[in-house]
């Protein structure tokens, strides 16, 4: 059993026009840079992308938007992207905005084999329109919850810090974010890592994504890791 593929091109080679993709990351933090580049190169189109954000104009999913590869974005926040705004306003791009916790939980639900979950997020708002609402007595109060369905994706594409040849993954700091959730949710899960090691080198206790969820893994290269909001303090 060896899940290693040679590079990003090989990893995404069977991603087809019209596929539903999950892409890990929060803002530009922890995004699968190599796979995005390969998808841009491949120019696969009509994609539905489930991703918390939509990148910026010239980085991340923004690169795919620029090439009009994306038919629909499912995100919680798409603020930092002018081309996105243009396509949305012109009707070229569909967007479905959903609460961030709902997005995360719907990915996790897929990985945990739970067809639906309940969350209070969006009750009483336009997000609740058309959704089943149900009151539960829980945690000391009776409250309404929305039923939200598990996401299913043809491919989940995630970025980890370290990985092994069996697909076990470890993330670093807040680059973890949606990555382990999406890793569990793909029919096919592709992981790119900064450091790829032979099976046995990672401590089994500290693996965030067990390899059973991962189908392909490769060692990425030339990570830019662009910072969206570089904010510093003055030394005292």
């Amino acid at each position, binding site marked *: 059993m060896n899940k290693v593929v040679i590079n990003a091109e090989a990893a995404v080679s069977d991603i087809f026009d019209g596929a539903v993709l999950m892409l890990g990351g*929060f*803002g*530009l*933090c*922890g995004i699968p840079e190599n796979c995005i580049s390969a998808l841009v190169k491949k120019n696969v189109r009509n994609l539905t992308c489930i991703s*918390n954000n939509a990148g910026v104009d010239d980085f991340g999913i923004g690169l795919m938007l620029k090439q009009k590869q994306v038919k629909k974005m499912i*995100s*919680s*926040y*798409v*603020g*930092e992207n002018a081309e996105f*705004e243009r396509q*949305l*306003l012109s009707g070229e791009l569909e967007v479905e*905005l959903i*609460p*961030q*916790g*709902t*997005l*995360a*939980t719907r*990915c*996790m639900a897929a990985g945990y084999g739970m067809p639906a979950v309940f*969350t*209070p*997020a*969006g*009750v*009483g*708002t*336009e*997000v609740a329109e058309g959704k089943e609402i149900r009151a539960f007595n829980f*945690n000391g109060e009776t409250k309404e919850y929305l039923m939200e369905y598990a996401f299913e994706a043809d491919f989940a594409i995630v970025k980890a*810090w370290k990985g092994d040849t069996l697909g076990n993954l470890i*993330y*670093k*700091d*807040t*680059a*973890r*974010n*949606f*990555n*382990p*959730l999406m890793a569990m949710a793909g029919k096919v899960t592709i992981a790119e890592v900064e450091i790829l090691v032979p099976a046995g080198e990672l401590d089994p206790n500290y693996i*965030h994504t067990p390899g059973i969820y991962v189908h392909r893994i490769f060692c990425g290269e030339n990570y830019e*890791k*662009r*910072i*969206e*909001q*570089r*904010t*510093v*303090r003055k*030394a005292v």
Partner: protein
Amino acid sequence: MLNKNQIAKRIAKELKDGYYVNLGIGIPTLVANYIPEGVSVVLQSENGLLGMGPFPLEGEEDPDLINAGKQTITMLPGSSIFDSAMSFGMIRAGKVDLTVLGAMEVSDNGDIANWKIPGKMVKGMGGAMDLVASAKNIIVAMQHTNKAGESKLLKKCTLPITGVRCVKKVVTELGVFDITERGFELRELAPGVTIEEVKAKTEGRLFTDGDILEMQG
């Protein structure tokens, strides 16, 4: 009348030792600068961190370590990292003791609108809907009026709402308001501000009951 930093400083007085706190973008972020002496709190960043520290020193920025506003940050001793599902899981489970958010409008029954302006590009709700639907204790930090001078403390929100009956307290440059069955209860008045001015600038139900303290920025 208080400035943004003074609003933040006033809100910081609500922090109790041992609190887990989520601070939104804008004035709420400034609250971290005024944590009272002897009070130890842990800041949650909903992208997956407990124990958020200050911004890094120049040259020490780490692209893998950002807050929910995508700013580079640091971790304090005792931090923990988790995925977005656990992050919102702990929020939904009521484990976060205090949430401080900005808002465009708050109604006198505690509804909040802070994510969408019809006719303008909608950027998304991010984690705001999860936070307001789940937190036990939500304080809104905002200006009392919008740029057109209209009240942001309303009978009913005019903008699409983010959550219903969830805000417990509003702190503006004019005063501190508890949200009660009877509407906004004025609890503290900023120095130099009169009740009449607050009344004039508050469209929602407003009342006073007992002593009104001077608001300390």
